[in-house]
């Protein structure tokens, strides 16, 4: 066991941090809910950090680590599918990569910026390239750019089958788990800074025990979910490990999002503060793969068949 970041991973995170710092410097808030930092997305790809899963010295745990770190940022890029799934399942697919897990007519996150779509269904897994002509924009309720396929049948007709649909699904579940832990950590970082600086009743909000205990409980839940996600990417990890990570991440979203907004107060209701960039991603991610209820049932069925 070695439950820490290795020197190699640390070097990789240094690259990620530099890219994120540049993204932070150009972050503009106050526009619409959905956002996508095309430059950040390109920098991550050029930096090579999205390929870590395919390198023996790194593997999927490192990809999950990269996803977690990038998703802590208020700047949004397509990282989870590209870092966790694509290197092992469809490296030939262009990116950004959107993932379709249900009804082909549904709204799909990242579709407006995607150049390929990975399809996970009962029948198997496949991917197809997309262009802007294939996509119609959907008004964003969550923080992601969201779109819908104009003609799903035509898109699916050019899909290429992937060889290991079971692995593709497990990696997609793991990608969501890592994405959730990252966005929740980003929100917690932001709110922790706020309650440290913001003074009410003559003292910082963060000195009130009611605030301290709830944020500490959030920290414990996020830390556990994060390490479960990293473990689920480790050598020898099982499907049960992956579903444990997904269920654990999805189940903590509601309570943490509630607390983060409570402690940021009215500031968190505005689009001029980035909190929604984390919480509104979490709100959508918690429903992926049927949501926490389905994930917990899947865990129970895998453990006690």
């Amino acid at each position: 066991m070695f439950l820490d970041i290795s020197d190699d991973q640390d070097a990789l995170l240094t690259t990620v941090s530099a890219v994120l710092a540049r993204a932070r410097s150009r972050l503009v808030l106050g526009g619409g809910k959905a956002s996508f930092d095309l430059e950040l997305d390109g920098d991550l790809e050029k930096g090579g950090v999205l390929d870590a899963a395919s390198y023996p010295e790194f593997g999927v745990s490192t990809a999950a680590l990269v996803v977690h770190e990038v998703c802590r940022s208020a700047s949004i890029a397509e990282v989870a599918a590209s870092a966790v799934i694509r290197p092992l399942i469809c490296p030939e697919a262009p990116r950004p990569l959107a993932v379709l897990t249900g009804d082909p007519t549904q709204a799909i996150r990242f579709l407006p910026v995607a150049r390929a779509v990975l399809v996970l269904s009962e029948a198997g897994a496949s991917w197809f390239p997309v262009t802007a002509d294939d996509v119609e924009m959907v008004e964003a309720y969550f923080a992601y750019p969201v779109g819908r396929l104009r003609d799903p049948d035509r898109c699916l007709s050019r899909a290429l089958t992937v060889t290991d649909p079971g692995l593709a699904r497990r990696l997609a579940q793991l990608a969501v788990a890592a994405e959730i832990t990252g966005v929740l950590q980003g929100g917690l970082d932001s709110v922790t800074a706020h309650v440290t600086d913001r003074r009410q009743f003559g003292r910082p909000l963060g000195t009130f025990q009611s605030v301290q205990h709830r944020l500490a409980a959030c920290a414990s839940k996020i830390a556990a979910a994060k390490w479960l996600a990293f473990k689920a990417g480790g050598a020898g990890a099982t499907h049960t490990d992956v579903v444990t990570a997904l269920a654990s991440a999805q189940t903590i979203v509601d309570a943490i999002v509630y607390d983060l907004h409570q402690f940021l107060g009215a500031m968190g209701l505005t689009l001029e503060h980035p909190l929604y960039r984390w919480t509104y991603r979490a709100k959508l991610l918690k429903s992926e793969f049927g949501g926490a209820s389905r994930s917990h049932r899947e865990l129970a069925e895998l453990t006690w068949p």
Partner: protein
Amino acid sequence: MNFEWTTREQAFRDEIRSFLARELPPDWETIARHGPGSKQQTEFSRIFCAKLAEAGLLVPHWPKEQGGRGSSVWEHFILGEEMWAVGEPRGPQYMNVNWIGPTILRFGTDEQKARYIPEIAAGNAVWCQGFSEPSAGSDLASLRTRADRDGDDFIISGSKVWTSYAGLAQHCFLLARTSGNRKEGICIFLISMQTPGINVRPIPALVGNGDLHEVFFQDVRVPASHMLGEEGKAWSLITYALANERIGLPRYQLSTRVLGEVVGQLKANGSWSDDVIKFRAGQALAACEAARMLVYRVVDQRSRGLPPNAESSLARVAIVEADHAVANFALDFLPEAFSSHVLPLLKPHHERAIAAGIASGAAEIQLGIVASDYLNLPRS
């Protein structure tokens, strides 16, 4: 990152499992129903721990010259996991091997080591910890029990409360104050519970027979040579001892075991097809795995010689949540099992879950530590 056991660690776990399969008697779980502080469990632990010692599995993490085998931090922890997976048959002696013995080994005089270490290593000793007082529970530094110098002795006066195992213990790891206040002036004494002036009153409790006591010290004369460490400097020793205690309890193993047994009963009675039951079972299992991961993270840090930090408090919070998730699952869907003997470990697990958030520093204390030392929130 590496989440895999080494061949040696796996072999060590297998060795423990073989021992348990061989040495745990068929009525062990029935004995465990009486609770960890019960006379039945304490007597059983003396026999069982002696066998563990003979097999080199009681204090494997201790130095070889002290009866151990120099096992790694991870191997020590694996031992704890396997013990908790069967309901912790070491009973009160888990304290001896996890933190009382190591604290004496690190800070004790040669005389103290010679007096206490061999019997702990042989599985013959039962200790209690004289920490909490009527006005010093979570706020341990406010303890008032006095130790006043009288020639070569100290005279101890005061009382302790909620003291586990005191009724059957031979020795007490006692905190008392010689001077000062808060963390200054506190001393540790290693004393016999047979010393004149000590009176023990059992307290009827939810957490099993014989678990909680009041201990009164009325002019108890203790030789100065029974003091552990320097006079008035015990707080750092307490911190060392509690750091050992706080990750010494992989209770999620017992929770996982009980959860599996409850699911087995639900399958047998035809309830398992209910999606709500499956959801709650998965939720409880995920809580156990969350606790496991955070504890593993702490053990890993210790294995690499890193100083204790607030991550142990993160883990403690998760352990409490796991205990309650499993206990509540059992209560919600198999309440009849609490009135029968079908699942003997269910009752002790439930009782421990109640105590989980209170013992060894309440969950709220852990949250406070996380807030100040992990999140670095401002202090009030």
